[in-house]
């Protein structure tokens, strides 16, 4: 499978990846003109943490080999796709128990702002060859590679 690799030292916290993710998942259109930064229904699936040493740390779902979010999910909503290796989320199945939010020890997951009942999670841009965040990163702090 392919993974979004991370070189934290190159991350400038420019937020191009954040905007890319929001644009890609915006139901009103995928271009910058359709993007409303205050639209709660269109949240970014990844985030940049600033740690205690003031470093920028891109927190992107790893689509782990042994994903704890899947292990912990009591409804079957979180699943690892055996063909692609990606960890997929099915909001129809989800029971909003938030066990996965607590269990992803990398702190990747959050509850959606709008309904407070869904999980905001990276889907590796289902219909794209390369995730849009990767395409948009100007410094190659995130890059896409076979692992």
């Amino acid at each position: 499978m392919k993974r979004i690799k991370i070189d934290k030292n190159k991350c400038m916290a420019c937020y191009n990846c954040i905007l890319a993710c929001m644009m890609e998942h915006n139901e009103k259109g995928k271009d910058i003109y359709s993007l409303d930064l205050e639209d709660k229904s269109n949240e970014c699936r990844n985030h940049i943490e600033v740690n205690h040493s003031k470093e920028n740390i891109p927190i992107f779902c790893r689509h782990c080999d042994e994903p704890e979010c899947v292990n912990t999910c009591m409804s079957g909503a979180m699943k690892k796709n055996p063909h692609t290796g990606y960890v997929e989320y099915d909001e129809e199945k989800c029971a909003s128990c938030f066990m996965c939010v607590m269990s992803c020890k990398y702190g990747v997951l959050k509850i959606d702002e709008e309904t407070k009942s869904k999980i905001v999670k990276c889907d590796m841009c289902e219909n794209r060859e390369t995730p849009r965040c990767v395409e948009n990163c100007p410094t190659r702090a995130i890059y896409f590679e076979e692992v």
Partner: protein
Amino acid sequence: MNYVIIGASASGMSFAKELRNLDKNCNITLISRDENVYSRCMLHHIISGHRTLKDINFVEDDFFNKYNITWLKGQTVNDLDVNKKILYTDKRSVKYDKLLIGSGAHAFIPPIKNLRESKSIYALRNIEDALSIKDALETKEKIAILGAGLVGVDVLVSLLEKNKKVSIIDMADRVLPLQLDKRSAKVYERKFIEKGASIYTSAKVEEVILDETNDPKAIKLQGGQIIECDMVIVATGVKPNIGFIREGSMEINRGIVTNDKCETSVENIYAIGDVRGVSPIWPLAMKEGKIAARNMVGGDERITDSFALRNSMNFLGVPTVSIGQVNPPDETYEVLTEEGSEYYKKIVYKDGVIYGVILQGEIDYCGAYIELIRNKIDVSHIKYDPFNIGYGDFFEISENGEYKFKAVV
């Protein structure tokens, strides 16, 4: 090789899938009293009517076909002969080379006067329980729930939605005593009361008062208080399902005793999940399923995680996460809290190590705490706000691009 599995829930299903992935040719037979596969953690959604049995299936619809597993459903294992390697269900006998016991647990009905004798007493563990509670609600109006742990409160919330008059009773001084402190419990208690619940904490049930036909009329507490009811739901914990094990044939201590490879005291028999009687939570049953499968085909993998003090909940729109020791055992622990109108956060801390966390109202990105608490990772090098510790403070990348926790020196 003939593998036999007892149980079609978290542990049995997780084991079966992993085993088939590891060994394409073995014979796998799964026996379960359950006639359907469903998530027990979601049974209260059946009571409330939000979900159907089909909606709470947690595996693929064609699971048994897809993984080529023979499923003897609706059969109860009554006897196990570990010497002859045969087990007996109520319908037939089944031989095995290797056996996985994932028979889980059943609801424990405490020895309270008249409780076991009474009609209209329910517990919630199986789909049949959920359906019969749902049926009973057609005629019952005043329901008493014994036990305000997670299952009791799950039931409470589903009954409040049905506009029933519900009383919940617990010996502890608050609801969800294992997961919450007084402050965070209060938030839920207020909401439950607003929705019409009556909450009796620090209350000990003395007896169930029955009418002439043995239907419950009321609950009598120690001290004499009377709580009227026409139905009782018991949520006072679980006991492992080990009735089919012959006395002396296997080491038992509350549940089936295993080592950290999931092996029981009998060769070629493994046990996982709630039947072990140690940490009865879903994620551990799932994880042990994988570990047991790998070991059964010759691997050597250990249970490294038996940390069961972790729960998330989401009642009436308020999410809460509770990890570790959330109520400090003595004064040597420091307690840090932070609160606003919509949130409450608490950290129990000692000598650079976080022992427990409650996060209520705001839980986004909180996962790092689980690792820090489980592994007692020293966080004293992080001099700033302990409420803002995140994975970024321990960031390190593995060869294959996964994250790992940087060792703190």
